């Protein structure tokens, strides 16, 4: 149940992704392709948890890797590559959800539940799923979960997704969000309390 995550961070030099990035800085585009192949799926999913739209999540992932590519020539390893990558991704997602036209800003939670339920049915058909109550409950839960995630304040959502979905330690999340570890602790606690309240019927 408990995850011992209070481990020291890997130094940049020991991070194979940092070494790839340094190869890319030296002009090896294959190294960039390797980084893209390795992390693009995770970044798409991170963005998807954030914005709740697959096409927009893919566009955001493109934005993130464009920034990585453009920063290649002046890259200096100061943290784990993924910490840096998720800092870029978090900023891209925060900018996106702060745009006035972002739908989660204006739609009530009930509508988001409907929307995310539709998405769950369209985007994640599971041919092996058992038809009946448990499958329905699973879709309901996922729909509700995505809706509540979309409703969380942006910084809470960022901290929660980085910590729980991406498995980062609070220290890594703090680096990615450029805040203190105690701030991350508080953000994750408040996000969890909100989820607990809205998902009470599933617990």
């Amino acid at each position, binding site marked *: 149940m408990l995850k011992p*995550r209070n481990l020291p961070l890997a130094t940049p030099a020991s991070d194979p992704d940092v070494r790839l990035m340094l190869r890319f800085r030296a002009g090896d585009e294959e190294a960039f392709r390797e980084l893209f192949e390795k992390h693009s799926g995770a970044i*798409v999913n991170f963005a998807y948890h954030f914005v709740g739209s697959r096409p927009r999540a893919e566009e955001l992932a493109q934005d993130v890797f464009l920034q990585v590519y453009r920063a290649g*020539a002046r890259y200096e390893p100061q943290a784990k590559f993924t910490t840096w990558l998720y800092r870029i991704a978090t900023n891209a997602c925060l900018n996106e959800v702060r745009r006035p036209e972002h739908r989660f800003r204006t739609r009530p939670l009930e509508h988001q539940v409907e929307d995310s339920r539709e998405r769950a049915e369209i985007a994640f058909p599971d041919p092996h799923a058992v038809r009946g109550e448990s499958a329905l409950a699973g879709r309901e839960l996922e729909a509700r979960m995505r809706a509540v995630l979309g409703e969380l304040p942006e910084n809470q959502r960022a901290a929660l997704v980085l910590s729980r979905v991406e498995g980062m330690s609070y220290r890594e999340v703090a680096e990615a969000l450029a805040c203190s570890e105690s701030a991350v602790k*508080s953000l994750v606690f408040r996000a969890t309390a909100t989820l607990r309240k809205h998902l009470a019927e599933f617990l």
Partner: protein
Amino acid sequence: MTSKDCETLAPELVAYVDGEQPETERARIEAHLDGCPACRREVERIAEIGAMITRLPRIEPSPELEGALWRRLEDDPPAHARGRWRRALLVGGPVLATAAGLALVWYSSLSPGARTRASAGRQVAAAPSPSPGSGAAVADAGEKGGIEPGLRLANPAPGDLPPELL
């Protein structure tokens, strides 16, 4: 065990479940949990919520994702990527220079009459032609999207070239 203890510990339980509490705090929480079924249940719920989030289905990126990224990079390459042109010219330059030298030798070896005929042929070749494959046709295809985006970099505008090549 008092409810005040529970209230004090409540904000610490999420970090406890996440394994983010220092050893001393951890020991204090576990001592409390040993005698408090309500807080033990709360820890279970927090862990359950964490597991629910982790179990959210992940999506597979579409196969077009990488191609779309490269198209965007080709449309607006960063300065350091434009160095590719420099590398291309470093490789292609000597080949072009050799070809030009051979052409010059060949032209010098021609008799005056043959030079006139060669010049006339060049003028005919330079005349506009509506045939497919002419410069105009290629430009038109480019505007209509008939040329793949990847090929656009093979003909950069002067502004795309690094200063040392201008």
